[in-house]
C-alpha cells in the first residue's frame, strides 16, 4: 500500500504532461500553439536550474555538485537559444495550463528537496533528476515536437533531446554511485 503512494507521487510531472495531451485535445483539436510550446519548453528548463540551486546549498558530494553545475550551464544554454529563436520568429511564449501545472509540481519537489539533508538529499535530488528528465524527454517527444507548427521550433526541440538523454544517463550514473 505504501509502495503505491511512492510510485504515484514520483511521476507527477509525467502525469501533468499526459493530462495536457488529453485536456488539450478535448478543448481544441489543435493542442498547443507555438507560443504555448515555447512557454512550456522554457519553463521546463528553468525548473531544472531551480532544482540545481538547491543542490548547491545542500550537497557536498563532488559528483552531485558537478552534475548540478552541468544542469545549470546546459539548461541556461538551451534557454538562451530558445529565447534567440522565439525572438527571431516573433513568437511570444504564452503561459498555459501545462506551464502552470509544471510550476505547481516543481514547487512540491522544491519543498521536498529543501527538507532533505546530507546524503539523503543527494539521493532525493538525483532520483528526482532521473524522473524529471525522463518525463521531460517524453513530453518533448510525444507532445511538444508533434504539436509545434513552425519548422525551426520543431527542429530546435529535436536538437534539445540528445542533451536531455545525456543528462538522464549522467543522472543514472550518479544514482548508481550513490547507491553503492
Amino acid at each position, binding site marked *: 500500500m505504501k509502495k503505491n503512494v511512492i510510485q504515484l507521487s514520483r511521476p507527477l510531472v509525467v502525469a501533468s504532461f499526459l493530462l495536457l495531451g488529453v485536456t488539450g485535445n478535448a478543448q481544441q483539436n489543435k493542442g498547443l500553439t507555438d507560443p504555448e510550446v515555447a512557454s512550456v519548453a522554457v519553463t521546463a528548463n528553468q525548473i531544472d536550474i531551480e532544482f540545481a540551486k538547491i543542490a548547491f546549498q545542500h550537497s557536498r558530494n563532488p559528483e552531485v555538485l558537478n552534475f548540478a553545475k*552541468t544542469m545549470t550551464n*546546459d539548461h541556461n*544554454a538551451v534557454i538562451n*537559444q530558445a529565447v534567440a529563436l522565439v525572438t527571431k520568429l516573433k513568437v511570444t511564449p504564452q503561459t498555459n495550463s501545462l506551464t502552470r501545472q509544471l510550476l505547481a509540481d516543481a514547487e512540491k519537489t522544491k519543498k521536498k528537496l529543501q527538507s532533505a539533508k546530507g546524503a539523503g538529499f543527494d539521493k532525493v535530488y538525483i532520483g528526482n533528476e532521473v524522473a524529471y528528465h525522463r518525463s521531460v524527454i517524453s513530453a518533448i517527444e510525444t507532445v511538444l515536437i508533434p504539436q509545434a507548427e513552425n519548422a525551426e521550433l520543431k527542429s530546435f526541440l529535436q536538437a534539445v533531446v*540528445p*542533451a536531455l538523454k*545525456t543528462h538522464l544517463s*549522467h543522472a543514472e550514473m550518479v544514482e548508481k554511485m550513490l547507491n553503492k
Partner: protein
Amino acid sequence: MKQLAYSSGVVTGIILLLLMWTACQPAPRVRELTVEIAQMQFVPADITVHKGDKIRFVNHDMVAHDITEETSKKWSSSPLQLGQSWTLEVTGSANYYCSIHEVMKGKIRVE
C-alpha cells in the same frame, strides 16, 4: 699512412653525404584529423592515428563540452562553446571523456 688518411676522408665524406640526405628527407608527415562533437557524441568516438598527429575537436552542440584524458586527467581542454575548437597533439593512446557530461567518451589509438 697516406692510405689511412685517404680512407678516413672517404668515410667522413660518406657520413656527410648521409647527413645531408637525411636532412633533405621530408619529415614524417603530421596529419590533422577532426573529431566532431555533435548531438552529445564524439564522432568518430574511436580514432586511430600516428604519434605526433593532431586531432582537432569541434563543438557543434548548443551546450559546452570539454575533452579530458580519462585515467589520470593528464590533459584537458577548457570548455568549448558552440562553434569553438581545440587541437590535441597526440603523444600516445588515450581514453578520454567530457568532464561536463561524464557519460560522453572517446578513444584515441596510436599505431
